[in-house]
């Protein structure tokens, strides 16, 4: 049985990848893997920020099931708990406080590194990719890991693309050779522009996007380094590696910055592909899929039974479950503070339509995601399909 490795990159938009159509690509290394990958052209997150999205990825559940709470509810089952019970060794290496032991995400992991004991700086308020890679390297080199009879599940999560955008000089140079900015100035942009969600100056937003792009180049280099670690440890040949992201990031597309409680494509469209060294010729699956299916797919790869609390199903055999609508939910907040009277917001995507329901305002938006991928023209008042989509999202909310 092969090991399974899940690599997730926080705040990574789908449209930064060459393999998803960007020219020039910001992800040369991950693009180079595509001939050994099954790529999902249209994967969607279950929420637009970490707390709303990660329950989808690691517990195959929607954010607000069991109510609004900061901690991971006890009723939810982490993929690590399922696998550990199934005799699989489980290990996690990440640096996202929302997924830390403090919020209850350490359940079921044999090894759980959330970095909360370590010191960080304002410029890099997380452990950088190179540090995460070293931790993984140490773990893999520990005796008995490789070639042992127990397969393992390893989850690696990078925070490097997350604001504040303070990329290394060499990556900035690759994006714009004329761009000169001190690290303190980059931090200043974070405090003065991003935190204030100030999109009034087009040039400043464009500058932020450049810094973000440089961070994407940087994280691609960490993935390259991680693959070297895998190669040296001898696990590359006997592991299936899943790549994904929890959400994207906004650069003024819908009047904001960062990742607030909105359901537009720049936030919920995410990359997803599966690397397998034994696979020949890149394959591309064109239908919509949801991150809700990641945990069930991992359980399936280990030949484990369906888990009762999981809301998704395995993506394999490909297409067997038919094309299902994709859903997401979050708190409709603006800015960095969530207020108690902020209400939930939901989306349902059923080709080619996507409906967004704002519970607080009681309003809907409807977009044709094929004809209008940027989701600029709301056709709720004009499209005849609006009532059907409304029923679709409400019936999901009722039976959820």
């Amino acid at each position: 049985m092969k090991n399974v490795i899940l690599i997730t990159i926080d705040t990574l938009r789908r449209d930064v990848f060459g393999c998803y159509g960007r020219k020039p690509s910001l992800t040369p290394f991950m693009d180079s893997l595509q001939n050994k990958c099954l790529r999902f052209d249209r994967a969607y997150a279950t929420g637009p920020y970490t707390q709303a999205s990660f329950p989808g990825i690691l517990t195959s559940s929607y954010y607000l099931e069991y109510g609004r709470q900061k901690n991971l509810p006890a009723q939810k089952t982490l993929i690590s708990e399922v696998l550990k019970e199934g005799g699989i060794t489980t290990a996690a290496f990440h640096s996202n406080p929302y997924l830390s032991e403090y919020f209850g995400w350490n359940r079921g992991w044999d090894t759980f590194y959330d970095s909360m004991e370590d010191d960080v700086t304002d410029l890099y308020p997380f452990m950088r990719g190179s540090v995460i890679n070293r931790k993984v390297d140490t773990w893999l080199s520990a005796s008995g890991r490789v070639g042992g009879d127990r397969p393992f599940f390893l989850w690696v999560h990078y925070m490097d693309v997350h604001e504040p955008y303070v990329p290394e000089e060499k990556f900035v140079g690759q994006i714009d050779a004329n761009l000169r900015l001190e690290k303190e100035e980059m931090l200043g942009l974070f405090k003065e522009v991003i935190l204030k969600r100030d999109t009034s100056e087009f040039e400043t937003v464009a500058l932020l996007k450049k810094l973000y792009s440089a961070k994407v180049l940087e994280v691609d280099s960490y993935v390259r380094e991680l693959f070297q670690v895998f190669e040296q440890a001898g696990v590359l040949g006997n592991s299936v590696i899943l790549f994904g992201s929890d959400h994207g990031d906004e650069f003024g597309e819908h009047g904001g910055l960062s990742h607030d409680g909105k359901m537009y494509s720049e936030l919920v469209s995410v990359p997803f592909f599966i690397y397998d060294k034994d696979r020949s010729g890149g394959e591309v699956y064109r239908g919509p899929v949801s991150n809700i299916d990641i945990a069930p797919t991992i359980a399936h790869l280990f030949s484990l039974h369906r888990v009762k609390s999981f809301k998704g199903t395995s993506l394999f055999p490909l297409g067997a479950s038919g094309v299902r609508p994709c859903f997401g939910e979050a708190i409709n907040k603006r800015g960095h503070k969530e207020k108690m009277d902020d209400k939930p917001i939901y989306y349902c995507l059923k080709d080619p339509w996507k409906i967004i329901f704002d519970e607080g305002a009681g309003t809907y938006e409807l977009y044709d995601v094929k004809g209008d991928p940027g989701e600029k023209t709301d056709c709720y008042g004009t499209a005849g399909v609006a009532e059907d989509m409304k029923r679709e999202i409400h019936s999901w909310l009722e039976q959820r």
Partner: protein
Amino acid sequence: MLDHKRIDELNRKIAQSKEVFKQAFERFEPEETRLIWSGGKDSTLTLWICRQFCQDEGLTLPRAFTIDEGDAFEEIDDFLKRYSREWQVGLDWGRNEDVLKAAGHQLDAEVRVSDLNERNREEIKRIGFELERFPFEAESYVGNHLMKTVVFNTYVEDSGVKAVFQGLRWDEQPARKNDPYVEEVAAAHLVPAHTRYRPILHFTERDIWDTTLHFKIPFCPLYREGYRSLGAKTTSMKMADIPAWEQDLENKVERAGRRQDKEKTMDRLRKLGYM
């Protein structure tokens, strides 16, 4: 009562720990080493094994070092005083007097950073805080750093200690799972170079209690009252009203009675632009 197989197993684990002490004393004189002794069950067992090893080998017993965070249980203090006398262990106490003074020795008192000495101000900056004041709590982020890490580093530096023994265990918490028996800490800004030895890494919590009870090693009475893990007084809680060793050690997290550092997590979120 333990069966013979189990006792053999515990003896093997003790022998394994002695190997770590052997390695350490081949490299360092006992006078150059210190045993970190919090008065908790793990460091007390470490000391007990160290004493045995030194007696067997005719070595001087290293001095012990304990850190007073300003929020200690009286029971722990009494335990340390009593057994340092009975076991004839030289015991040094470390305190961050400067912070204690600025807080008026009062928990939750607000400490003004400008009242602190240069070293403490520099340390706050080193861990990435830009604050003017903070509440005095031993297990908050700033508090933990100033009251423990700084006290430790200062002591190592001032006493010229080259190596320390720590009673850490692999099963204590997942973050410890990859800790090595010997770790070299390189010199850095405000951090003196030293070597850390962890002789009892392979003991589980169950092993600790079986060994402690079987060999009648003394322990702090708080464990009998239901505490499983002892930290600062105000942040440690009883897990149950039965002795620690009668609790469900295998299925309930040992440190659940100790508050995970909320402030540290919140600070990370702030730095990422949340909160």
